[in-house]
């Protein structure tokens, strides 16, 4: 290292002023140990500041003894002072921090409330949207149904009430082309527990019943219109009450409605 140049840079003067970074201070302390010239220069710079500050001094009237007395006394004085002077300041400080804490907690609560309010509203929105979607699809189904029933290929058969239940009635809408039958069973009473309505396609001579299917979930179906497949050359339709799961052949004692297909 070029010691002369380092000294000439003026960094050692700043070192004495105490305005360098920790890193620079450490570096200079190490150089001072390594290079006597640097150490010497540091001491000389310090001496000049010492001389200057000494000349500016008003002198010092206190002896070291009085200083030590004050230091030893200071401990007690400080402790008394602390007791006297701290309460107000520290109470204010504690009160302020307590207030702040309460305030923060309150804000937090408010924020949480708002958040949960938003959640509730969002949930309501979702529910409403769901209702709209449900209504839409229900409307669509109804439209479909209406369109189906209005189809020109449909032949309508009225099924009248029989001995078991004279007031019952039903209608069969038969689309021969796509072999579908829609049974409108609005006029049938709710089946008792453990029983189900079964729809039959009948040939009249000789009387040959063929099962077309069950009116499942009768109670919960809203419009009570059931779509069944019917590949048969039906001459009449009948609906009987059968044990749950349906039967192989109709129980004619429990024949609720019956109707003959109009000859086309």
């Amino acid at each position, binding site marked *: 290292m070029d010691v002369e140049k380092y000294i000439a*840079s003026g960094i050692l003067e700043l070192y004495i*002023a105490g305005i360098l970074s920790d890193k620079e201070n450490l570096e200079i302390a190490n150089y001072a140990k390594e290079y006597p010239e640097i150490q010497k220069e540091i001491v000389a710079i310090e001496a000049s500041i010492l001389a200057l500050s000494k*000349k500016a001094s*008003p002198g010092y009237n206190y002896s070291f003894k009085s200083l030590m007395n004050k230091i030893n006394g200071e401990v007690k004085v400080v402790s008394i002072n602390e007791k006297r002077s701290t309460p107000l300041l520290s109470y204010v400080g504690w009160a302020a921090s307590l207030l702040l804490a309460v305030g923060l907690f309150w804000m937090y609560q408010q924020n949480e409330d708002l958040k949960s309010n938003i959640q509730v509203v969002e949930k309501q929105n979702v529910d409403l949207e769901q209702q709209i979607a449900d209504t839409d699809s229900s409307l669509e189904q109804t439209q479909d149904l209406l369109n189906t029933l209005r189809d020109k290929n449909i032949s309508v058969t009225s099924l009248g009430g029989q001995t078991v239940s004279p007031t019952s009635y039903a209608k069969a809408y038969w689309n021969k082309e796509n072999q579908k039958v829609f049974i409108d069973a609005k006029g049938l009473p709710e089946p008792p527990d453990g029983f189900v309505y079964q729809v039959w396609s009948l040939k009249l001579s000789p009387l040959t019943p063929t099962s077309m299917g069950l009116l499942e979930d009768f109670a919960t179906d809203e419009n009570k219109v059931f779509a069944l497949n019917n590949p048969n050359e039906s001459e009449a339709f009948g609906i009987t009450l059968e044990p749950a799961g349906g039967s192989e052949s109709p129980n004619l004692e429990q024949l609720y409605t019956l109707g003959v297909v109009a000859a086309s």
Partner: protein
Amino acid sequence: MQLDLLVDQFKKKDPSAFEKLYGMYADNICGVINTIVKNDALSQEICQDVFIKIWNNCESYNSSKGRFFTWILNIARNAAIDEIRSRSYKNDKKNLSADYFVGILQNKEDEQASTVDTQGLRKLIDNLKEKCVQIIELLYFRGYTQKDAAEELDIPIGTVKTRNRSCISQLRENMEGK
């Protein structure tokens, strides 16, 4: 090297080491404070407080961070600056920045009672240019950083180090010529 030993003893709270250090530096510390507060009695009072602080914080001095004198110099000027900030000087910031320690000389000539060695001080700084007095004041007695000093004196920051070096050299010549 004797100083290092004293400082080591002092860090172990040895009162006799502290007494020696006190003897070595009390005048200087009071002088530093006086350049800032410019009041003999107040300077002495703060000076005593500073040495109490030095004693109470003796463990915090670390020789790798600088000279012992630099450490106590820093404590002293902070105490003095705190003092005048907390007093009525509050609204009169110019007092802190514009009135350099040569002000002591003018004040003291009016005041018969002052104990400052005005003649000695005058001799020491007589041929120093004003810009030297300013830069020494800011860096040593006010603890300005290079950047702050450059702004205050309206000079490029790179100039601070070299100007200060030449000013201190002048000061050293004055000392030797005495």
